[in-house]
């Protein structure tokens, strides 16, 4: 465990990709099976512990620390695992203990602490019953030092976040044997921790593991945001355009296993198998191959907003009622394989033809093609983007968040290769609001006041008043963050734990120009509206608070956006 902890610790401070790769390869080369395999599983998020959850850790630390001190510490550090790792009391320590009539026994009469191996941790977590687990984990925490505790807790909460993607970890393994990461990717879904077969193959000690998965995930190709200066560098005639749909990226794969049975899978863009959430869509995958598209909710042939889509997601039970109310739809825009043929090296224009033919054969209303947007010049496309309905987007125009530009000759490359695909989003809505509260951030922003609640004017009982309409924590640069943080500290009028209320009123206060993608009505917010993806677009140091926007500005945007139909609304009650 200490070796794994040391690796995570070094990775977490190492900014350079190549250095990370070296650290990973060094670890894999010098760590025996099965220890290294479990480390690989941890970094590819392939470990799942049913009973070990953040709640268990909270429970343990709450028994040993004053809850108020823990709460303050957590708000400061901004990370549960790290807070617990740091605050965990050494045997016999009192300064963090809760003051109570009888201090709970801390259990230091146990035999001397034993530092576990990663394998031991993983195997124990998988087999120990829920009731025995707290004592086990507490024993490990007593035995480990701060770094070891941090690594253990990161493992249990499944949030390693040391700047290593699953892809990078697989790359390191592949490079042990001089292979490409894609070769590991293709057999990955047939493998299980601790991956002894895989290590044997890359080290030349065994055969290449069979991909027992007839419907494997292939890493998707991603786009770059289009910058203003790109237009001068790019030639419009080299590109094809599509709408950018406001949905969720999916990869649908279908094949046959060795017994000839049909295997159909739906993957998220990170390779997570989400088939179970979309049985209605799985049913429609009556083809052989893998296609790339956008998950949307379509009612009466009309694409619904992202707000509606969200109601289909993250449900524990996928009931017939949910499926009827939120019918899943796949709008496809690329094809990676067909039958046994890998099409990814073909130019996009060729793949598009193959895709059109395939969709015609699928012939299912739940799967359709994302139409191309005709244009001659960038100006044409800008006009289309500003008003999608004008170029045939029809009633779906509201579900479009911009355009995708794809080089006609681009191959399908995993990751985010430069120069092929661009996204050109619709301009966001803007509103001038007044900062009301600042809250300490988490992660990278820990201990900076980086989350700002802002409000707009409305008529209150005693004249005009500010009502909070949203909260934003990005959009500004690191330099601006320092200034905003200082502003919050110097204009504090009230403190509520990690939150500070700042000065605001007609004659004082800071105006923030907030950009956002959409609005929805909300009963949870005092103002009755909730913003989608709000961020600080500009800090208006110059603008008097009295000139910030009024709630009516938002009401108007809301009315424009409320065109979705709710066919089954009566059943919701």
């Amino acid at each position, binding site marked *: 465990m200490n070796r794994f902890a040391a690796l995570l610790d070094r990775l*977490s*401070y*190492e*900014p350079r990709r190549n250095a990370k790769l070296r650290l990973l390869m060094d670890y894999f080369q010098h760590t025996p099976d099965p220890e290294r395999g479990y480390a690989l599983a941890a970094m590819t998020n392939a470990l799942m512990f049913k009973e070990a959850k953040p709640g268990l850790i909270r429970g343990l630390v709450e028994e040993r*620390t*004053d809850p*108020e*001190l*823990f709460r*303050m*510490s957590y708000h*400061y*550090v*901004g*990370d549960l695992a*790290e*807070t617990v790792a*740091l*605050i965990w009391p050494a045997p016999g*320590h009192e*300064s*963090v203990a809760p*003051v109570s009539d009888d201090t709970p026994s801390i259990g230091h009469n146990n035999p001397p602490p034993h530092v576990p191996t990663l394998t031991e941790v993983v195997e124990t977590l998988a087999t120990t019953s829920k009731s025995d687990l707290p004592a086990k984990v507490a024993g490990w925490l007593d035995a480990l030092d701060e770094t070891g505790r941090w690594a253990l807790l990161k493992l249990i909460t499944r949030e390693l976040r040391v700047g290593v993607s699953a892809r990078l970890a697989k790359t390191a393994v592949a490079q042990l044997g001089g292979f490409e990461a894609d070769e590991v990717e293709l057999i990955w879904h047939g493998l299980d921790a601790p991956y002894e077969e895989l290590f044997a193959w890359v080290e030349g000690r065994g055969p290449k593991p069979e991909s027992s998965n007839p419907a494997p995930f292939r890493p998707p190709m991603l786009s770059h945001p289009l910058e203003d200066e790109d237009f001068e560098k790019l030639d419009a005639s080299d590109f094809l355009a599509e709408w950018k749909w406001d949905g969720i990226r999916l990869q649908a794969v279908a094949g046959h296993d060795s017994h000839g049975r049909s295997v159909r899978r739906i993957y998220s863009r990170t390779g997570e198998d989400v088939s179970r959430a979309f049985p209605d869509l799985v049913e429609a995958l009556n083809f052989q191959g893998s296609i790339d598209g956008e998950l949307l909710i379509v009612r009466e042939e009309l694409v619904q907003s992202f707000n509606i889509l969200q109601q289909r997601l993250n449900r524990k039970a996928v009931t017939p009622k949910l499926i009827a109310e939120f019918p899943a739809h796949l709008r496809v825009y690329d094809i990676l394989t067909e039958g046994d043929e890998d099409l990814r090296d073909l130019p996009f224009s060729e793949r598009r033809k193959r895709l059109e033919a395939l969709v015609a054969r699928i012939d299912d209303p739940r799967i359709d093609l994302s139409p191309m947007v005709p244009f001659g010049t960038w100006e044409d496309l800008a006009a289309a983007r500003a008003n999608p309905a004008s170029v045939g987007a029809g009633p779906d125009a509201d579900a479009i968040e911009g355009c995708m530009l794809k080089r006609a000759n681009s191959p399908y490359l995993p990751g985010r290769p430069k120069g092929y695909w661009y996204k050109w989003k619709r301009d966001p809505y803007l509103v001038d609001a007044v900062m009301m509260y600042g809250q300490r951030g*988490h*992660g*990278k*922003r*820990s*201990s*900076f006041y980086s989350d700002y609640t802002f409000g707009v004017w409305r008529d209150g009982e005693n004249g005009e008043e500010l009502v909070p309409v949203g909260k934003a924590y990005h959009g500004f640069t690191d330099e601006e963050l320092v200034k905003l943080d*200082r502003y919050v*500290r*110097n204009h504090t009028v009230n*403190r509520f*734990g990690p939150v500070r209320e700042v000065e605001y009123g007609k004659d004082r206060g800071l105006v923030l120009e907030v950009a956002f993608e959409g609005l929805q009505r909300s009963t949870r917010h005092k103002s009755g509206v909730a913003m989608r993806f709000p961020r600080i677009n500009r800090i208006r140091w110059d603008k008097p608070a009295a000139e910030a926007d009024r709630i009516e500005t938002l009401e108007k945007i809301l009315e424009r956006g409320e065109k979705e139909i709710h066919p089954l609304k009566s059943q919701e009650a």
Partner: protein
Amino acid sequence: MKGFHQEKLGLSRRTFGASPYADIAEAHPISPSMALRSTDILTQTPQGLYCPLGDFHIDPVRPVKRALITHGHSDHARSGHRAVLATRETLRIMAVRYGEDFAESTQEASLGESMTLGDVTVCFTPAGHVLGSAQITIEAGGTRVVVSGDYKRAEDPTCLPYEVVPCDVFITEATFGLPVFRHPDTRDEVRKLLDSAALFPERTHIVGAYALGKAQRVMALLREEGYDKPIYLHGAMERLTEFYKSEGIPLGETPKVVASERSKLGGAIVICPPPSIQDLWSRRFPDPVTCFASGWMRVRARARQKGVELPLVISDHSDWDDLCRTIGDTGAGEVWVTHGQEDALVHWCTTHGIKARPLHMLGYGDEGEVEEAPQAGGEA
């Protein structure tokens, strides 16, 4: 320095000898019927803490008539006061930073010697924070208040150790006033630096450290671990480091970095003010490893925010355990918390039956980060 300005300050002096509190420590009198309330002795003003009975401020953030200064860090020791009373070392540090004319008049406070200022008695006692740092005890009408300034209990080869002064009211900082802050053994941290320097002999290790105190402590710790090569200094470190040496603290050979020679300093350890670890100045060294010596390095996000690759948890402030221990050691029935993570320490006091309140004082190293701007040393 002009020296003695007793008349101007209106001071008279009486000396108790080296340890005025020896007898009190045995039978600490928390007077049951306090003649004076603590707020009669010390109040909060926009300039900082003020003693009306003695008519002086402690560590004022704006120019005042009479200032008592706990230590030389720039957020506590500012220039422009009319009269300043501080330890000899603190006065010298202020002169190094602000020039000899940083105040109209100055007076040295001898550690452990009580003196009368108006209707109160004051006494300076070592605080263990940096060279010359002192706690200030104010006593009147049977009530004793201790203003600790910044302090630490951990060992430091560059300054006198903290001395416990029993008191009725203890005024403490809380820079690291959360139980997640437990400073490790400094020797292990310095060894991390030496191990990394051995592992990457071609790279320069650039250590960000506050120009006053931390920088010299890191140098002294490196020497204690047997590192005998030159330790290179950023220009902003030079004069204060020379001052430490002139006070008899052995720091070995500490040449100033010559700008044109930076590319030849692979394998060297270089100490610079914290802001310089990220600026262009440090990029001219061969493949530099960015290190930072600070108590903040305990929190990962803090280290990453600063782009630190090798965090060294070395602090000149008390960690959580030492803050709590010190409050207990003073026997104070009342605690005021000046700055830092006030809320947690106040909560701890309250749950341990000690009256406590946060002062929310502004201007003191906003969470410890603004201390020591790079110009602090004068040049560079």
